[in-house]
């Protein structure tokens, strides 16, 4: 059935017209005032709290993302710092320390410097210990050769090498070479 025909078959124009005549009531003005005041209050209230926050939702979301990302980076740094500290205690080699030093964090940088200092100090101590060893025992002490095979080809060349070492301030190496020269050529007398 067509909706219009259906509608007209149910409703009655006389009844509708009669109802229109009796339906003349309007709400009291005090109710209008209450409703409209509530509507205005609701707008103000929402604008005051949630509405204000709602207008800042994008900056707030951006700030929250930044804070979260920073938190993750700091957490990651603290994990790396822990690794670097372990390496400074002798657990890992200098490669780990240099990895820690590669970070931008000041803590990690300071730790890497500390490790480098420790390594340099350790190297210095080792060198000093080696130099403090008695030099008479040539089988134990084998410092790097200062004069090569060519320069040891004759006593004169060897002596020239010792002189160069002395001139360059390598007194220990010069003394060592001189001793070897004396042992090898006991009758050699250097020219004045």
């Amino acid at each position, binding site marked *: 059935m067509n909706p219009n025909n259906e509608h007209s078959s149910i409703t009655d124009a006389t009844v509708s017209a009669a*109802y229109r005549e009796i339906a003349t009531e309007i709400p009291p003005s005090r109710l209008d005032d209450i409703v409209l005041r509530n509507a205005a209050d609701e707008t103000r209230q929402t604008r005051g709290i949630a509405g204000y926050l709602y207008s800042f939702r994008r900056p707030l979301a951006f700030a929250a993302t930044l804070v979260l990302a920073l938190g993750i980076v700091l957490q990651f740094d603290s994990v790396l710092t822990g690794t670097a500290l372990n390496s400074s205690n002798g657990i890992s080699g200098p490669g780990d320390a240099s990895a820690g030093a590669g970070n931008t964090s000041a803590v990690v940088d300071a730790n890497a410097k500390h490790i480098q200092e420790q390594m340099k100090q350790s190297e210095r101590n080792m060198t000093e210990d080696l130099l403090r060893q008695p030099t008479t025992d040539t089988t134990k002490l084998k410092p790097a050769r200062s004069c090569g095979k060519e320069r040891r080809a004759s006593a004169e060349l060897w002596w020239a090498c010792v002189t160069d070492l002395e001139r360059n301030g390598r007194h220990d190496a010069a003394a060592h070479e001189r001793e070897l020269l004396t042992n090898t050529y006991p009758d050699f007398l250097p020219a004045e």
Partner: protein
Amino acid sequence: MRNPADDTALMLRYKDGDTSAFEVLYRRHNDALYRYLLRLCRNQHTAEDLYQETWSKIVRSRSRYQPRAKFTTFLYRVAHNCFIDSIRRNKRHDVESVADPDATAHPADEQAVIVDKGKARARLESALLLLPDEQRDVFLLHEEAGLSLDTIAFVTGAPRETVKSRLRYAVRKLKNAMLDATMNSVEGKQGRLQE
């Protein structure tokens, strides 16, 4: 005829904080909603309470408002639900609601009103007040809100055919009440003439 999109646009403007848009919307619907609740409740104080409650719910729901249906549908659905809740809260409401208007005497406090109006219209109003709640609800939604059968079915939550049946019964009862009043009036005049 009112453009329903205008109501939706006004509600969306109010959602964005435009109070003047709500006032326009309110002025459009306040009278019809008031009469709907007044006749549905048959009690002025209850009607006024429900009227405020309905608008209050509309106002509070503005931030969640989505234009899925016409604003009128939304408004009268809220009002209908407020009325149903009111019935549940107040069990005293269901007195005489199923009584036949022709078998029941007019309430004494309505006699004064009847004097001022034509007998047929007075009889119509009385018969309307004595309709069962469901029939009166459907009739008022049709007459005051101008809702279609489908929309009334959505608002009341009843099947469409049930709504159609209720509206037909309501209209028939009201028409009979008006005819009876006319017949009584004619018979009265004839009786006076014979005397």
